[in-house]
C-alpha cells in the first residue's frame, strides 16, 4: 500500500539524473555518421590553380588531414595559427576545402595570414561539403591510407585537440 506512493518520487529521481547528465552534453553537436566509412569521392578545381583538379583519391595511400574552411568564417581565424604550427611539423599533408567562398577572398586570407595547406580544393557551391556532412565551418577530418574517414573534429582545431586526439591518431594510422 505504501510503496506505490513512492513511485512519483522514484520517477522524479531518474529524471533528475538524466537532466544532470544533460548539463554536460551539447544538444547542437552533430556526430558524424561518416566516421569509419570511406571518404566520399569528389573532384573539384583547385583554389590556387583553377585549371588543375583535386580528387579525394589523389591522396590514397597516405594519411591526411582534410580541413573545411572559408574566408568569411570567423572561427577559422582562431584555428589558423594552430594549423600553421601543425603544418610546420610536416606530419601529414593538409588539404583544405574552401567552402562556399570567393576565390579572391580566400586567396587574400592565405596571403595575409599564411598558407598551412599543401593543396586547397575549391568547393564553390558547397556540394562537397554536403557530401561530407558539413554543417558548420570549420570542420576537419582525419582520413587514413585506405581513404576511410577515421575522425571528425567539429569546430576550430585547438592545440589541445591536436595533442590529445588528432596527432596520436595520425601516428597510429601511419604505422599500419
Amino acid at each position, binding site marked *: *500500500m*505504501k510503496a506505490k*506512493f*513512492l513511485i*512519483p*518520487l522514484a520517477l*522524479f*529521481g531518474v*529524471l*533528475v539524473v*538524466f*537532466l*544532470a*547528465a*544533460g*548539463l554536460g*552534453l551539447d*544538444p*547542437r*553537436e*552533430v*556526430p558524424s555518421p561518416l566516421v569509419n566509412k570511406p571518404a566520399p569521392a569528389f573532384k573539384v578545381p583547385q583554389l590556387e590553380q583553377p585549371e588543375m583538379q583535386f580528387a579525394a583519391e589523389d591522396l590514397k595511400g597516405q594519411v591526411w588531414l582534410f580541413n573545411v574552411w572559408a574566408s568569411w568564417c570567423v572561427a577559422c581565424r582562431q584555428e589558423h595559427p594552430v594549423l600553421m604550427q601543425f603544418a610546420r611539423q610536416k606530419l601529414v599533408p593538409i588539404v583544405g576545402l574552401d567552402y562556399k567562398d570567393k576565390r579572391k577572398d580566400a586567396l587574400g586570407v592565405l596571403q595575409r595570414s599564411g598558407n598551412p595547406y599543401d593543396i586547397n580544393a575549391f568547393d564553390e557551391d558547397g556540394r562537397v561539403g554536403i557530401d561530407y556532412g558539413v554543417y558548420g565551418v570549420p570542420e576537419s577530418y582525419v582520413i587514413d591510407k585506405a581513404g576511410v574517414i577515421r575522425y571528425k573534429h567539429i569546430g576550430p582545431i585547438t592545440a589541445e585537440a591536436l595533442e590529445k586526439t588528432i596527432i596520436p591518431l595520425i601516428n597510429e594510422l601511419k604505422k599500419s
Partner: protein
Amino acid sequence: MIPELGHFALILALCVCLLQGILPVLGAHNGRREWTALARPAAQASFLMLAASFVALAWSFYVNDFSVQYVAAHSNAQLPTLFRFGAVWGGHEGSLLLWVFMLSAWTVAVAQFSRTLDDTMVARVIGVLGLVTSGLLLFILFTSNPFDRLLPAAENGRDLNPLLQDPGLIFHPPMLYMGYVGFAVAFAFAIAALLSGRLDAAWARWSRPWTTAAWVFLTLGIALGSWWAYYELGWGGWWFWDPVENASFMPWLIGTALIHSLAVTEKRGTFKSWTVLLAIGAFSLSLLGTFLVRSGVLTSVHAFATDPRRGIFILVLLFLVVGSSLLLFAWRAPKVALGGSFALMSRESLLLTGNVLLVVACASVLLGTLYPLFIDALKLGKISVGAPYFNAVFVPIMAPVMFLLAAVPLARWKNTDIKEIALRMWIPGALALVAGALIPYLMGGWTVMTALGSALSVWIAASGVIQVARRLKSSMPPASFWGMHLGHFGIAVFAFGVTMVGGFQEEQDVRMEPGETVSVGGYQFKMIGVKDVTGPNYAAARGEFEVTKGAGAAKILEPEKRNYFSSTMPMTEAAIDAGSTRDVYVSLGEPLEGKAWAVRVYFKPFVDWIWGGCVLMALGGLFAMSDRRYRLRVKEAVKP
C-alpha cells in the same frame, strides 16, 4: 544609484521571504500564533520589495541606463518606449525578476483574499510560497543578477532581439508567467494540506479558484505565444512542438486535469491524494520548464543564453522543491482517509478517466521532449524528436478525451447509467456523424483526420448547446455551469480551427513582379509594388498587394521585410487580413532580380478559431472562478 537600490531591494526581499518561509510554517506546526501571524505582513513586505526592484529595473530601461549590463544587452536608444518596457523581460535575468515579482504578487493576493480561511492554513500556504520565492531569489542573486554593472558604460545598447519587438511579445511572457507562477499557489495549498494532515473538501474549495485563475492565465499565455508565432515568423505555422512550447503545454495539461480533479474533491471528497499529486505535478512541470529553457540542455529558438552554472543551480532547486514535496507526499498521502465510494460507471470514474488520459498525454509530450537527451546521455546516438512524432502520438490520446468530455456533464455522481447518457446524446451523435461526412467534403476533400476533427468538434459543441438549452428551461444556472460549458465549447471551436487549417489551408510560393497576380483559396492577390521605408530602428522594404475575391471590394495588404540596424538577420512582417472564417496571409521572401520578389501567399480557413477557442476556454475558467460559492462568507445567514 537606482540599480543599486534595486539590487538592495532584492536582498531585502530574500531576507523577508526566508522569514516568511520558515517562521509561519514552524508556527503552524508548533501552534505559535506570533509566528503564524507573520505570514500576511511578510507577504506584503516582500511584495513591496520586489515591486521596488522591478520598478528599478524598468526605470533603468526607460532612461537608457547602459551602465547596467542587462540593459545594454537588451535595449537600445532608438528602441521605441513600449518595447523598452517589454525588454525588461526580454532576457534571462529580467524575465526571472518578473517571475519572482509575480510569485510575490500571487502570494500577497492569497494573503489578501483569504480572510475566510483558517489562519494556520494560510500561514502554511504563504510559508511554502515564501520558501519557493527564496529559492528563486537565491538563484537570481547568485547567478542572474539583472543589476550587474557594465563599466565603462556602453555607448548604446545591443538592442532587443528584433523578433521580440512586437506587442504580442509584450504580453506573452507576463501572461505565461502568471500561469506558471499561479500553479505555485495550488502547489502551496497541496503542501499545506499534506503538512497539516487536513485534506478535505473544504481544502479543495479554497484551492479551486486560485488554480483555475492560474490555468486561465496559462491558457491565454500559450494562445498568445501561438498567435504571435503565426503572424511574426512569416510562414503561417502556429505550433511546432518546440521544447519550450512543450514546456508550457505540459503544465497546462496537468493543470486541466487538476481543475477537474479538484471539482471532484470539492463535491465528493474523493481523489484527494490524486489531486494533491497533480497540484505538485503542475508546479513541478513549471519549474522543469524553467530549467529546460535556461539550462542549454535542449535546442530551441526560445532558449535563453545559457551558462552551465545556472543550469546546475536550477536543477538543484528543482531537485529540492520537487523532491521534498514528493517525499512529503509519499509519507503523508497514505494516511489520507478514503473519500466516498462510487460505482464503476459514475461521474467520478469518467472524470478520472479523462484525468488519466490527460496525464498520459502529458507524459508522452515529456517523453518526446526529453528523449533526445536520454539517448545522448546513454551514448546511444543523437536523434531529433519533432512535430511528426508529437502529432502522431498526441492526437490519438486526446481524441477519447474529447469524446468523453461532451458526455461527462450528463453523468451522475456516485452511479450513472451509460445507456441513459447514450440515449440523451443521440442528437449530438447524429450531428457529429453528419458533420464528419459532409464538412470535409464541402471544404475540398475528405480524409479520415478532417472527418474525425469535424465530428468531434460538432459532437462537443452540439451536446453543449443542447445541455445548456435543457438546463435553461428550469432555473438560471450558476456561474460554474456556464464556465464548464464555455470551456468545453472553447475546445470544440479550437479543434475545429485546427482541423480546418490543417486539412484545407492553401499556399503558394511564387515569383512576383509588380502587376502580376496569383490565385489562392479563391482569392486573387495582385502585387502593386515594393517601396523602401524607414522605421525608428530599422529599414524595410514594404510590399503593396491588392486582394480581391470575385467581385468583392479590394483590400490592401502591406507585408514588410525589415532590416534592423542591430541585427544581420532580416525580419519578415507578414500582412494578414483576418476574418471570422479565414485569414488571408502574404509575406515577402527574398528580393530577386529586377523588381521581382519571392512571395508567399496563404489561405488559412478558420485559423482564428484556434485562438478564439482558447479565449473561450479562458472565459469559461473566469466564469467558473466567479461562482458565488467561492465568495460566500462564514457569517452569511444560510436560508433554509
